[in-house]
């Protein structure tokens, strides 16, 4: 069936009852119901599994009311309320109504938050505003929410995640724009430099031919004095060497220009950040592309060792993968200014592509290792790091069903190991 990994977020995923209700949210309601005389409340999902249950001590039997709970209008579970008095029926109805309302507003909240954390379309402030409104509409059931604090915290967590993506997207967008702008600026002069160089190459060839013909012609005359003075001059001025070398110089320059052209096209490729097209890529090439983008950030004395092995094509959104590589490489570059050695190796084994980045930086201190994937966790000074780099790496890699493992020894270096599963063609 559908290849889940290919899709980051689809509106419409099915929600089960237990995704929409939490015991902590319900316990105030259940407790007050028990206090009011209800003997037993049981909530089961559609397969009969108990989601929550609360009962009076010593309860054996009584009058039962049964209600069907629905999610998106479809039966999703049963609510069983038992009491020992007929008069409690209105109370049971009330509990059912409250529960229904909690489920519905949670469903709304989950759906809207999902749209936001996955599809960042609104500003953080608008997001807060929407959530505030959603909460207002829940006011009627406020008194149930003794554990409001916790819910707020959960919600803030969700918002924080959405915000993280927003910032990173903006960051990438501005890098992309800068890259696209640079690429354009460089492309123009590069165009005429290359075309001029080729013309120059042809001119020199012609000049050489002319000089040689001229020398030949003069040699055939009997003007010995002239001949020897010209040959003398030709030697002193190293004309033969000069002609030969000009040709080589131009060839080298043309080669250099080709390289610049390649970098520029890499930059352009890199700036295609919002074309989230899925395609099949060669991971080795993408790493090179990322390194090219970073070329001016890499110090001269840094040593980058590549140990690439042949890899099968990998199905992904190239921009997101480049983004992950970029963040890891940047971390290594920032970890050590002088004498950096970064080894990048790739290989394929048992359905997995392995990509390993190993640096000889200071390593990550043990006590912060647990936190490095947290959004906004950074040890870098303000303005230098946002603390989102590894968060994004984690998001990207796991979105392809892959794994990330970081090994680090203080004083020796850090190794980041990525594994990416290669799958057969999806049918999406």
């Amino acid at each position, binding site marked *: 069936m*559908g290849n889940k990994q290919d899709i980051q*977020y689809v509106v*419409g995923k*099915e929600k089960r009852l237990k995704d929409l209700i939490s015991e902590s949210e319900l316990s105030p309601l259940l407790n007050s119901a028990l206090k009011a005389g209800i003997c037993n409340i049981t909530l089961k999902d559609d397969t009969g599994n108990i989601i929550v249950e609360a009962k009076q001590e010593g309860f054996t039997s009584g009058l039962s009311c049964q209600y069907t709970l629905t999610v*998106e209008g*479809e039966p999703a579970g049963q609510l069983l309320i038992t009491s020992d008095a007929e008069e409690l029926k209105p109370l049971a109805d009330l509990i059912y109504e409250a529960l229904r309302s909690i489920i519905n507003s949670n469903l709304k909240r989950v759906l809207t938050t999902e749209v936001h954390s996955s*599809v960042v*379309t609104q500003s953080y402030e608008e997001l807060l505003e*929407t959530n505030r409104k959603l909460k207002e509409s829940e006011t009627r059931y406020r008194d149930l929410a003794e554990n409001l604090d916790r819910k707020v915290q959960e919600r803030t967590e969700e918002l924080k995640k959405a915000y993280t993506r927003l910032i990173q997207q903006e960051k990438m967008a501005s890098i992309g724009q800068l890259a696209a702008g640079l690429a354009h600026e460089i492309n123009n002069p590069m165009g005429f430099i290359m075309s001029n160089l080729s013309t120059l190459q042809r001119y020199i060839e012609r000049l050489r031919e002319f000089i040689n013909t001229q020398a030949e012609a003069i040699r055939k005359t009997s003007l010995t004095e002239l001949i020897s003075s010209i040959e003398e001059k030709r030697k002193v001025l190293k004309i033969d060497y000069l002609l030969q070398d000009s040709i080589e110089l131009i060839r080298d320059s043309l080669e250099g220009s080709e390289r610049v052209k390649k970098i520029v096209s890499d930059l352009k490729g890199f700036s295609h950040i919002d074309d989230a097209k899925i395609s099949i890529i060669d991971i080795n090439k993408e790493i090179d592309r990322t390194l090219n983008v970073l070329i001016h950030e890499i110090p001269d004395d840094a040593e980058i060792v590549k140990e690439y092995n042949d890899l099968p094509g990998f199905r992904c959104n190239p921009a997101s993968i480049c983004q992950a590589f970029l963040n890891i490489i940047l971390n290594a570059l920032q970890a050590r200014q002088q004498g950096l050695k970064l080894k990048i190796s790739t290989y394929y084994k048992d359905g997995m592509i392995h990509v390993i980045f190993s640096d000889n930086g200071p390593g990550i201190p043990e006590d912060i290792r647990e936190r490095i994937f947290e959004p906004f966790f950074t040890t870098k000074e303000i303005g230098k790091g946002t603390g989102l780099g590894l968060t994004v790496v984690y998001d990207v890699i796991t979105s392809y069903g892959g794994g990330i493992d970081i090994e680090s020894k203080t004083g020796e270096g850090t190794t980041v190991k990525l594994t990416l599963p290669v799958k057969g063609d999806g049918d999406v």
Partner: protein
Amino acid sequence: MIEYDETEKRMVFKLVYYGPALSGKTTNLLRLHDILDTEGRGDLMVLDTKDDRTIFFDLLPFFLTTPSGWKLKIKVYTVPGQVKHDATRKAVLQRADGIAFIADSQLSEIRNNFQSFENLEKNLTFVGLDIATIPLVIQFNKRDLQKIIPEEDIERVWRPTGIPIFFASALKGWGVIETFQMLLDKTYDYIDKRYSLQDVHGLSKEEFIQRIVRKKAMDH
């Protein structure tokens, strides 16, 4: 298709009402909700609107069980029409099994219809769907108003595309069921091809449509 679950014997499909802002997508769903029987459908969920415009999406789910015992769920969504919500539109379009494009018949809206249709084409490609094969119907809504594009003009432009065209007034309630019914008709063929509704599940097209488009019995 949103979900296909062998063990739970369940298939979930998605239909999307697309179109420019304020063309009447939500009103279409409201009408379906009013006209169709509660049996076999869920409630209309209108997700938080701000200034009366859809920010997220609306959802109206339908259910039925096939003779083979599988549960079919059809989730009908609207998309937010405003230009700035393109990302949400993409997420709603993902994995859609059929689309009703709701155009606004008013003369002043020609450009918006056009832009929105272009946006639909672009986003379909973006989410990997093929506009040539995905079930698609077009509804020109708000026919009850005065300054509207003449029917002949619409016919001339759209008939050659082969896409079924409907004229409607969602506000007054006519044309809405016809549009929906044709969408279901085309969608049935589309999913029957992949999941053999007829051969494997014993569900004919007539029955499929009948079970979803069940009009409310008028109470006297």
